[in-house]
């Protein structure tokens, strides 16, 4: 039970935030007031079941509409959720993260934690954040209107959670699908196939939301703390870490998704989940 706690939380949160069953049946999306709010993880708001907005979609909508003006609401959203959770959101609350986790559990291929050239590829998510979410959404036009470049050309969550269920249940939309849909389907297929072998390739190399939340990891409320004095350097935590982080980097690294596997395997319990409350009064969860 304790081992599967994270998967259970991920599944419950995914069902909770995508629970608009009527949308799946009719090929429509929820249009109520809950969509004023965003969910913390990558969750396309065009998913027929989505009951709230996608934070990246919302950020791009503001950049599309207001251009060079600062998108205060989404900056505030990222500061609040990032400061409390950091990348705990990626590890525990992101629906697309859950999909990749489940695919990685399929017992085929020899599993890999990282792709070759990881130290170069890991900057891909920052390139996507600046290039597609930022500059792309401010300057790229489709016809007379600006387009959300990340959603249009890359977002696999939109294809998986939005496009596939909608196109399956809505014939009018199915007739309009063309080259762009095939491109997005290709991107999704590559990422899903890669997820079977490599741990969360989209999160590690491409997700702009992970790039944003990663910045908050070093000072967020939810922390994984390593006590150097008690550590016996057995490296069990690094072997268990799905993104191969050494214990000295776990707490501050923007790559740590707070999955808690290091804390579970540590024989000395010197790696632990903590709430980083004021000063040194840390409280164990």
């Amino acid at each position: 039970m304790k081992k599967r706690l994270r998967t259970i939380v991920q599944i419950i949160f995914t069902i909770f935030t995508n629970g608009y069953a009527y949308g799946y049946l009719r090929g429509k999306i929820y249009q109520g007031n809950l969509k004023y709010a965003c969910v913390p993880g990558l969750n396309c708001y065009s998913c027929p079941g989505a009951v709230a907005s996608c934070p990246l979609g919302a950020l791009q909508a503001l950049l599309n509409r207001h251009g060079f003006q600062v998108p205060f609401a989404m900056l505030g959203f990222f500061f609040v959720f990032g400061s409390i959770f950091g990348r705990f959101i990626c590890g525990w609350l992101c629906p697309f993260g859950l999909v990749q986790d489940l695919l990685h559990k399929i017992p085929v291929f020899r599993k890999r934690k990282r792709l070759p050239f990881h130290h170069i590829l890991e900057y891909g998510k920052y390139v996507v954040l600046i290039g597609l979410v930022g500059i792309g959404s401010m300057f790229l036009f489709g016809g007379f209107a600006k387009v959300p470049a990340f959603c249009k050309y890359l977002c696999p969550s939109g294809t998986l959670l939005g496009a596939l269920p909608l196109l399956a249940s809505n014939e009018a939309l199915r007739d309009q699908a063309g080259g762009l849909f095939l491109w997005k389907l290709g991107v999704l297929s590559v990422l899903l196939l890669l997820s079977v072998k490599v741990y969360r390739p989209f999160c590690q190399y491409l997700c702009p939301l992970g790039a944003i939340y990663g910045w908050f990891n070093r000072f967020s409320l939810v922390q994984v703390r390593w006590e150097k004095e008690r550590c016996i350097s057995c490296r069990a935590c690094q072997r268990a870490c799905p993104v191969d982080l050494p214990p000295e980097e776990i707490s501050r690294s923007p790559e740590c998704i707070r999955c808690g596997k290091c804390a579970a395997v540590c024989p000395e319990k010197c790696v632990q989940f903590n709430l980083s409350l004021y000063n040194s009064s840390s409280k164990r969860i």
Partner: protein
Amino acid sequence: MDKGREKRKGSVKQAAGSGNGEAGRRKRRGGCGWLFGVTAGAVLFGIGAARGELTVIWQKAVMICMECIGIG
């Protein structure tokens, strides 16, 4: 003489207790950073809401996003 030594000891204890040094500074910074982030975030969010940004988000979210599903 003794009084002076005790005074020095006291000040050393106080320094250790208040978390001086690199480790202490790091601990303090990490300790309240999240609180500063949440406060700043709440203020920024409030400014955004007052400027009507939530309505822009809602207007986008209640229509099927053609770009998101690979049609637009």
